[in-house]
């Protein structure tokens, strides 16, 4: 117990959850087949909006974080309307450029404090600790200090948000909209001729991804007390993409697994910090060579489902690999 309450592990868990939320954000845009590398940019917009609202305008934290998400969404509307007309690699490049533009703007604005970044952002943990103390538990309970209780509360809140987003993504994928997304991903032209307003749904997915990334940014800002333009640079955009590449982007569990692995891995490989980028590169290449669909795909889930329930296999589903063309 003492071991788990170590601030280092608590911090690691919060980072895992925030990265998992970012994983969901890229999953949502990818579920329509759009490769957007702008999620780091949307994350920074969410983080800065939320941080500035609490710092300068005294907006309470619980309102500032959703407002950060809304700001990211608003920006997504401005850049999404022209860019979602682009496909594949062109969209990736345009959104990557967008992320860099956001970073440079943040770097040069006075209100964002330039390269120094924003510090002493109101902390979610401190706020929750105070709340718990005010509740009459200033001395903590059972040897757990009030600070640790605050951290536990932060983790619980983050887990709740993540839980809701997973629920959202799962329900979405089995609904009319989710099927439209899947159809667009599979064959945009056929989807359009089947009566799906592809432009609308692609924009919707783009917005949802931006909103979730903005929320993740806001949460990150209030957990780390400090944000700077470097936190949202190119490497962040690639890291988010890697969650989906490693874990897979077919089902929501893929990018979540990717996020967990890629958050824990650098900690385990602490001795090899200098080689981190190299290891990331190696993972990318190996995944593309041996398992392009990522660690978890629909067939993986189907396989586990049959293994766990031991039900007779559905005809034709067991030996099917994805995207087999006759």
């Amino acid at each position, binding site marked *: 117990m003492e071991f788990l309450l170590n601030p280092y592990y608590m911090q690691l868990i919060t980072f895992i959850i925030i990265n998992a939320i970012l994983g969901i954000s890229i999953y949502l845009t990818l579920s329509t087949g759009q490769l957007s590398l702008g999620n780091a940019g949307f994350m920074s917009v969410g983080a800065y909006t939320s941080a500035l609202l609490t710092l300068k305008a005294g907006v309470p934290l619980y309102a500032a974080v959703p407002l950060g998400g809304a700001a990211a969404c608003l920006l997504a509307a401005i850049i999404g309307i022209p860019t979602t007309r682009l496909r594949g690699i062109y969209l990736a490049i345009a959104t990557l450029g967008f992320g860099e533009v956001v970073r440079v703007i943040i770097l040069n604005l006075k209100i964002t404090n330039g390269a120094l970044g924003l510090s002493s952002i109101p902390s979610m943990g401190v706020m929750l600790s105070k709340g718990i103390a005010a509740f009459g538990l200033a001395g903590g309970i059972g040897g757990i200090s009030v600070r640790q209780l605050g951290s536990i509360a932060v983790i619980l809140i983050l887990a709740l948000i993540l839980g809701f987003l997973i629920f959202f993504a799962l329900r*979405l994928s089995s609904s*009319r909209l989710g*099927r439209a997304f899947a159809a667009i991903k*599979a*064959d945009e*032209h056929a989807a*359009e001729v089947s*009566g799906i307003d592809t432009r609308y749904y692609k924009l919707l997915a783009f917005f949802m991804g931006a909103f979730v990334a903005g929320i993740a940014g806001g949460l990150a800002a209030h957990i780390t007390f400090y944000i700077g333009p470097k936190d949202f640079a190119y490497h962040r955009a690639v890291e988010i993409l890697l969650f989906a590449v490693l874990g897979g982007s077919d089902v929501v569990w893929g990018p979540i697994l990717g996020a967990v692995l890629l958050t824990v891995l650098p900690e385990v490989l602490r001795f090899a910090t200098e080689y981190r980028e190299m290891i990331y590169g190696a993972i990318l290449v190996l995944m593309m060579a041996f398992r392009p669909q990522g660690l978890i795909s629909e067939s993986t889930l189907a396989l586990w489902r049959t293994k766990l329930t031991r039900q007779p296999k559905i005809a034709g589903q067991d030996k099917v690999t994805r995207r*087999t063309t006759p």
Partner: protein
Amino acid sequence: MTLLLEQVTKQFGGLAALTDVGFTVNPGEIVGVIGPNGAGKTTLFNLITGVLAPSSGRIIYQKQSLVDFKPHKITELGIARTFQNIRLFEHLTALENVVVGAHCRMKAGLWQGIWRTAAQRQEEKNIREKARELLNLVGIGEDELSLAGALPYGKQRRLEIARALASQPDLLLLDEPAAGMNESETDDLQILIKKIQELGKAVILIEHDMGLVMNICDKLVVLNFGKKIAEGIPKIIQDHPAVIEAYLGKEED
């Protein structure tokens, strides 16, 4: 009148893919569009379904001009199509493919899908039932859970027709549905198209299989180099000198 084309022209730069093509399709009619490769048949389908915009001319569907409508809107108005090279959603199941086809006839929005409201569940249930009926109609009811990409070729063709029918069209455009089919499969297809006609739907059929075309079409439109060279009932077209020269003559050589 279901569909009316008037002096439809489509130019790609200097190349005229279609020049002044016009014909009509009446309710419940099967119209065959034939012509050698490159005659502009698929371009014609792309114009009707809004994938391409005509350079000039009018396309009127049930008294409404289709020019400037987006493809998904045209599907909603009641025109559905299949593709020459099959375009299914390969890693969705056969049933899901058909349900996707019914997209524009469903209402559930984002939040209804997330919270699974009573109305949403009812709609899903109804649409699945209808999709199963369509799969049975085209004769692949037992394959509903198979991934579309894993189905054999003939069944994929049928599934594509089922997906198109799911949007409840009044006019169905079939682009070479018999391509790559053997004789018995083509016979089954013929029965299926007749069944679709009996449902009161008009069909435009692009096809190279002359046996099929002559058997089921109420009217034929013959294109060559983007121009309509003949139109009429199959019996007349068969003996039309321009057609024999452009198309059938070559077949018989």
